[in-house]
């Protein structure tokens, strides 16, 4: 924090001098209401106090069951940056879909460009792919939303037999698992149904930065370091046991897991630049 602060002061000083220099130079103004900058949101997957290590790390959930994780992927969409005065900036929807994969470090850094400069005090996003987009024709679902190409196809993050995205996929092994393979599977999706109303596991996460601020300027690109605690998938309003519910896909029970994981995100720290 101290380091951040001193960096911040350094930058502010630099900016201040820059302003003077610019001012001397002519009529340009530094405070531009239309100024845009960038911000990076990092999704750091952890298990309690420990970093998540695929396959090698052994952890224990709230039901006292030990487990390893072989796969963790989830969709983040419809990002909104919140200001302290209650207003917010909504990232244009077409550029607001991300697939975070534990096995791919680059996917964990979500960079948002063309963000209005200013101070942000929180963030809000959908875990999953909203129903409107889910129901759109394929030409409107490209990039990470392309179910037939790229990571979403490779990672099978789409149910082709019951069309819709898998919002969160967590797989691993556990001595408690009942499956003959010793594996557990959580494939949580369901956007509400295309032709008839059905399961809706869309959840909106909100992370308040506490007293901290992410300050976006035309020079400063802050990085908001969020942590996603996998233990929360198993522990929240429902304690999920691998022995009792080790395989949850498109079933009613999945809503309890969605209710749990929506609360797994919290702020660790903010880099000013």
């Amino acid at each position: 924090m101290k380091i951040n602060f001193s960096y911040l002061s350094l930058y502010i000083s630099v900016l201040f001098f820059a302003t003077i220099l610019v001012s001397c130079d002519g009529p340009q103004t530094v405070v531009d209401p239309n100024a845009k900058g960038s911000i990076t949101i990092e999704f750091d997957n952890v298990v309690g106090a420990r970093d998540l290590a695929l396959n090698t790390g052994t952890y224990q959930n709230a039901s006292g069951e030990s487990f390893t994780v072989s796969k963790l992927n989830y969709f983040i969409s419809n990002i909104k940056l919140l200001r302290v005065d209650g207003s917010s900036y909504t990232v244009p929807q077409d550029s607001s879909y991300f697939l975070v994969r534990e096995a791919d470090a680059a996917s964990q850094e979500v960079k948002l460009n063309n963000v209005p400069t200013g101070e942000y005090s929180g963030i809000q996003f959908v875990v999953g792919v909203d129903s409107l987009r889910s129901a759109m024709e394929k030409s409107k679902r490209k990039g990470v939303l392309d179910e037939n190409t790229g990571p979403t196809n490779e990672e099978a993050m789409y149910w082709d037999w019951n069309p819709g995205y898998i919002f969160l996929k967590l797989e691993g092994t556990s001595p408690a698992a009942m499956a003959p393979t010793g594996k557990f599977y959580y494939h949580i999706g369901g956007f509400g149904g295309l032709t008839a109303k059905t399961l809706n596991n869309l959840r909106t996460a909100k992370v308040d930065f506490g007293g901290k601020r992410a300050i976006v300027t035309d020079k400063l690109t802050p990085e908001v370091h969020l942590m996603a605690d996998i233990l929360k998938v198993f522990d929240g309003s429902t304690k999920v046991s691998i022995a009792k519910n080790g395989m949850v896909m498109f079933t009613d029970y999945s809503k309890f897991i969605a209710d749990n994981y929506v609360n797994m995100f919290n702020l660790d720290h903010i880099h000013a630049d």
Partner: protein
Amino acid sequence: MRKTSFFWVSLLTLAQVSVSCKTEPDSPVPEVITPTPLTWTKPSYFPAPVYDLSKNPLTKEGVELGRFLFYDGILSRTDKIGCGTCHQQTAAFTHHGHDISHGVDDLLGTRNTPSVQNMAWNTSFFFDGGVHDLDGVPQVPIQNPVEMGERVGNVVEKLKKTPVLGAAKQVDYPKMFKAAFGTNEINADRMMQALSQFMLTMVSANSRYDYFKLGDASALTVQEKEGMTLFKQNCASCHSGELFTDNNFRNNGLIPNKINDQGRYAITLNESDRLKFKVPSLRNVGLTAPYMHDGRYYTLQEVLDHYANDQNSNSADVIYASPTLDPILQLSGQKQGIKLTPAEKQSIIAFLRTLNDEQFISDKRFSDPGVGTSL
């Protein structure tokens, strides 16, 4: 957009003129490939198609590409299982003699192979109706671990690498995609469109029933005509219209199978959909044994015995009462099922066989172009 292209065309023209003035050799003119449009004809007494043909206009080359893709095992993880492996033409594109089918590494599926025919009129696909768009159908068997066990993204990569040097079957997919779509780009959307184009051409409307329908009274025998009357009275409320289905999902009283397949419920999680399966078309039904979502009945006799709730055949089955059982099978004051005498059943079966379309199952346009594998 148009203005921009006009600008570029003008610019290009000027560029060419200036090049010509220098009397240098002509730069190679990019080859313009225009696929040949194919007219899709709806049988006059069929309803309007459900598939929007304007979004994927049929072409001779597109359909041909679709036919190759339909039969080529390259769609599977092992390169051995094509669509045509389980959808065999002689059995009206079902898996003859198989209650359930075996895919890659001989892994077994859970449901009976449905017929690929008259796809343009389907409002939904598969026994649970999970998919609503024909373009979204092929990825389901391709990516099912026990069917073709492959990823669509990987199929696209494999197609790009054809023709494979030294392979027995020299199929040049980049060339075929170019012929069908103008450029040799291979992507999943084009692959699905080509498969749809081929499947849309697979129209079955040349059975003896159809000849009768078109005015040839002698196309059906007396017994078959009797069967048709009985069919209309007893079966056509669900197997309605010229496609012989109401496209609905119904519980026809089958005892839940060993895996307790809940059918439509798996898609909607709605209690009222438990044990409901899609009402299949009955066209070519005489060729598509075995029957029901799990292929439990091998003969039409068994099927009719089930609906009549009779235990006079080898089948020990009876109509299974559950909250979602179709009301048609539980009329008050009588035994569950549809009342049919043995003679009536025979007439209905005779009528059903008039829906067999010999032309459809021998039409070379739908046949394996020599890339298929039948197991």
